[in-house]
């Protein structure tokens, strides 16, 4: 069960870079795992191993993929079919119009747009905070930087639950300006920027950039802004990619925070809106709505899978 999901995925990048470098070395010397080529010459072990792999494949296809395949099928099946024979392998009639009905009649396009705005805003906030903070703390290094960095890291030890209510009251009435952000997208995505994990990951990446390049740029007369924009950021694409994909996916998946700060249904993202649509929607249309809400994150994952799965897989090959 995922520590990585319920908590923030702490061990990911920290452990990963080490794992990647080690993987590279073991890959080059001799690629072997639990079983060796020598052992596999024994027929018994070879067949057992193959059987175990096939069993795992079946388990994953049925267990992990199964519910999603079922959803894909049920979303284009008329309600009566789904209710009468929920496990029928193939639908009697295909109802493609379910998807269109969900998109238009349930006003899914509005909630889809809201989700997109929140995800993009959350991404932009996190990128802005993480890159500027990482740059200042790692490259510019003001004297008080260590203290600030400590204050950032300390927030990692405060569980998210503790902040829920005080954060809500803060958003309700911002200090100094006394603005109320509830029912605005700002409330949904600005707090996402306060991610100590992002700052730590980006700062550590900047720490490892070649000093000679940065010093050379400084000697050539680049100011802090030019150094940041034209030298440091272009060299940091890998880490920016990792932070980006996790930021977008986390925003797409978020539920409790937008539920609290966006009570206006017209502002809500899909995750928040779907539960209240459930009791008032025809089953097949609702399942179509669930499918539409899942397709984007899954496509996103398939496209950027190397960022998610890189924990030592092809990370050794491509950095």
């Amino acid at each position, binding site marked *: 069960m995922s520590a990585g999901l*319920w908590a923030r995925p702490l061990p990911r990048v920290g*452990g990963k870079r080490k794992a990647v470098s080690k993987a590279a070395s073991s890959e080059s010397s001799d690629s072997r795992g639990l079983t060796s080529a020598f052992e596999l010459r024994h027929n018994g072990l070879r067949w057992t191993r193959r059987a175990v792999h096939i069993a795992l494949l079946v388990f994953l296809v049925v267990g992990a993929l199964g519910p999603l395949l079922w959803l894909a099928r049920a979303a284009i099946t008329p309600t009566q079919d789904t209710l009468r024979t929920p496990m029928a392998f193939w639908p009697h009639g295909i109802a493609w119009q379910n998807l269109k009905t969900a998109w238009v009649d349930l006003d899914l396009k509005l909630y889809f747009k809201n989700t997109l705005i929140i995800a993009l805003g959350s991404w932009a906030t996190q990128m802005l905070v993480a890159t*500027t903070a990482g740059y200042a703390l790692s490259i510019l290094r003001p004297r008080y930087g260590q203290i600030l960095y400590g204050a950032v890291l300390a927030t990692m*030890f405060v569980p998210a639950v503790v902040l829920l209510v*005080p954060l809500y009251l803060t958003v309700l009435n911002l200090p100094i300006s006394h603005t109320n952000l509830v029912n605005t997208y700002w409330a949904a995505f600005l707090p996402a920027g306060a991610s100590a994990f992002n700052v730590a990951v980006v700062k550590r990446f900047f720490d490892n950039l070649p000093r000679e390049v940065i010093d050379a740029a400084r000697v050539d007369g680049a100011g802090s802004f030019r150094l940041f924009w034209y030298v440091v950021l272009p060299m940091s694409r890998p880490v920016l990619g990792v932070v980006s994909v996790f930021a977008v996916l986390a925003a797409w998946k978020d539920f409790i925070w937008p539920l609290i700060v966006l009570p206006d249904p017209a502002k809500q993202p899909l995750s928040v809106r779907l539960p209240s649509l*459930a009791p008032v929607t025809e089953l097949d249309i609702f399942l179509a709505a669930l499918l539409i809400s899942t397709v984007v994150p899954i496509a996103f994952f398939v496209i950027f899978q190397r960022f998610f*799965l890189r924990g030592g897989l092809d990370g050794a090959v491509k950095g």
Partner: protein
Amino acid sequence: MTVTDTAHRQRRSPLTWWRGGGAGALLFLLPMLLIFGLFSWWPILRTGVMSFQHTNLVEPAQWIGLENFRNVLHDPLLPVAIRNTAYFAGLAFVFGYPVPLLMAVIMSDARRLRGLFSMLAYLPVVVPPAVAVLLWRFFYDASPSGVFNSVLGKVGVGPVPWLESSHAVMPALVLEATWAAAGGTVIIYLAALVSVPPELYDAAEADGAGVFRKIWHVTLPHLRGIMLITLILQIIGTAQVFLEPYLFTDGGPDNSSLTVLLLIFNYAFGSTTGGGDYGSATALSLMLAVALAILSFIYFRVTRSWSTS
């Protein structure tokens, strides 16, 4: 760095600070200072204050000492919520903890299929949790023609009233939560498994070890450090479980899936209880956080000697 800095401090003037790029650094730190200040540091400080106050957002907050804590501790629902949360965490440990480990060990030995395996395992993780719960709520339909019940009916079991029975509800929630989350842990273990030095396996083989002995004496010891971390992170995560009980059953039936975080949510935002009790919500959040901090501290003290690094 700090030593030389203090030595130079006297000679620094605002002008040299400006020329040395001090203003630039501050400018770059501005987004972080603003966002962390408003949405992290300030709410953290506020937690401590608010738990000793009565706030209804209209009148100014009043200091009421420990009354919030007293209210929470006297709430008859608190022991129920704690018991349910511990039960959830326990079930998640028994069922959810070994599964990713086993999968990762098998996957690490697969060469060509490893990419496909890890992609399939991770797929549920990217499904929005609200969507996953709504889908599974339908799977758990209590009628004999419900998705799971119709499968179980073929082997003569059931129908099980999954979410409507106070006995079955927690295991049902844990099953969905495991499905949704296992993939993330699999990837963490896989990353650690790639770094097992192949020489260790070679050596174990030379000593005549079979597959199971290699797992027991090489693979698992290598994973010990990361297993200890994923375990405490899982405990901390399951102690804060909210989405499943909220969306599946809203704490029911008969409070048998009411968790601590759901209780906090109900104090502050609940529709049935009226909500608005921000003081009690903060007090209970604080107690949960302190309990988790103490637990983690003890955990790391006790397990320090087991960890490999």
